[in-house]
């Protein structure tokens, strides 16, 4: 028997739930005030997912960086690994909002996309 503690983020109450499990299968969830808690606890227990937002280096842009996000959520355990991968990327200005910066991040099938426009200029706003 294993025990995990999860705080529900569905509303400001923030129910502290305890999940009991055996061999990776949930046997009981307690501490939730409403059914949303159960759904959240199950998702968080089986495969917690997060959208990763960060920045990528831009060459020849009005700003030195462009903000990016994973188009869909990726497994939580891959966040730091993804950061190492993203640190290697450089993109040439101009960059358009929604532009795919990298396909198939870490083989997840999820793309990294730009979240703002960056114009091309000879010297950036902060140089």
């Amino acid at each position, binding site marked *: 028997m294993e025990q995990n503690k999860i*705080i*529900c*983020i569905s*509303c*400001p*109450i*923030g129910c502290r739930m305890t999940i009991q499990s055996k061999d990776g299968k949930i046997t009981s969830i307690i501490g939730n*005030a409403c059914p949303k808690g159960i759904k959240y606890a199950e998702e968080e227990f089986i495969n917690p997912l*997060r*959208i*990763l*937002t*960060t*920045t990528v*280096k831009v060459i020849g842009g009005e*700003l*030195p*960086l462009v*903000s*990016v*996000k994973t188009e869909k959520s990726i497994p*939580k355990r891959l*966040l*730091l690994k993804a*950061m190492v991968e993203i640190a290697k990327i450089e993109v040439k200005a101009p960059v358009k*909002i929604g532009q795919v910066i990298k396909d198939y991040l870490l083989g997840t099938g999820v793309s990294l996309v730009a*979240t*703002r*426009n960056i114009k091309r200029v000879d010297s950036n*706003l*902060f140089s």
Partner: protein
Amino acid sequence: MKLEYDLVIIGGGPAGLAVALEARRNTVKDILLLERDKYLGGILPQCIHNGFGVQYFKEELTGPEYAGRFITKLKDCQINVKKETMVINITSDKRIIAINRDDGLLHIQSKAVVLAMGCRERTREAIAVPGSRPAGIFTAGTAQRYINIEGYMPGREVVVLGSGDIGMIMARRMTLEGARVKAVLEIMPFSTGLIRNKVQCLDDFNIPLKFNHTITRIEGGKRVEKVTVAQVDKNLQAIPGTEEEISCDTVLLSVGLIPENELTSEAGIKLDPVTRGPIVNENRETEIEGIFACGNVLHVHDLADFVTEEGEIVGRAVGEYLKGNRKFRSQPIKIFPGDNIAYVVPQHIDFIVPGRKKIKLFMRVKKPEERVKINLIDDKGRVLTAYKKRIVTPGEMVSVFLPEVLLDDKLKNITISIKRD
């Protein structure tokens, strides 16, 4: 350049952008938007995390995407924008003095003015932390701008003071960029930020959050070397004997935001001592007719979506003001904060509006409370209407509707009070 306008908006963040677009939809013709930074969007472009737009667009966007939607629309409707332009004075008769590199000194006359200057962060000086004055002490928002916009890493070993949303978001951001966040300290016994941020910014990365704790000393020569941390008592005073030292090279402060109202005060507009923003009616109009305020300059919001909503109220109100067909009540209804309410916006209701069904009131509570009733009480202590809430917390703005049918001519005051249900 043209120096006379129907509407001048000061500040190009989410509030100012919403005002500009909504005023245009409400037939306001000559609009000028003044922004002191190099780009529009206010703080949003550096808020690269997601969670914006869930209320307004019914989808989850990042800060730059949220701002981008409004900026794109603004370009389509030919609103005059001047960036890198600093307003240095506003007068009560709506003259604006501004300055920029291309035009020099500008004297602008407007029929209506909207204050949308936002807020700024409290600093180490505001909370008076003793110790030396080394490099490495930043407000969380400044660190955010360095990392997300300008491309500098502020430090490697970090202690965050304050568990507001910006502090928690920066704890995650620094961690993702390779720093080690040793602790987030919160002087109160509860987090002042959203639960979601506590879980996804701190718990996800095993960053400890210590309630009832503060920094009592910052030490270092050229650079921060360590902080002394102590537990606090009920009066928020450090308890002797609980001190511990944490070595770090960086301290991030997330210790509150202050509406930026120097221009407002210079125009002679009174401020509410609690919100630190101007006192306004339901149109978000200050005591000077035709000068409006919205967004974080009026009161600090927790969601950009609510700022947009408030900007749109002002956009419509400016349209009505310029048409000149408004009808005042014989006397305003004043709205007062009661039990466990820190403040209510708007502070008074001035107008008779045919066809209006209800007025939305925004408020912030002082302390968390569960299973409550929000009572709207009249001069004689009668409950006009009441709303049940499962939970209220200082971190999340509360809103209730005031039904128009309750507002008869004699009503002078409404007090909003929270009681255990």
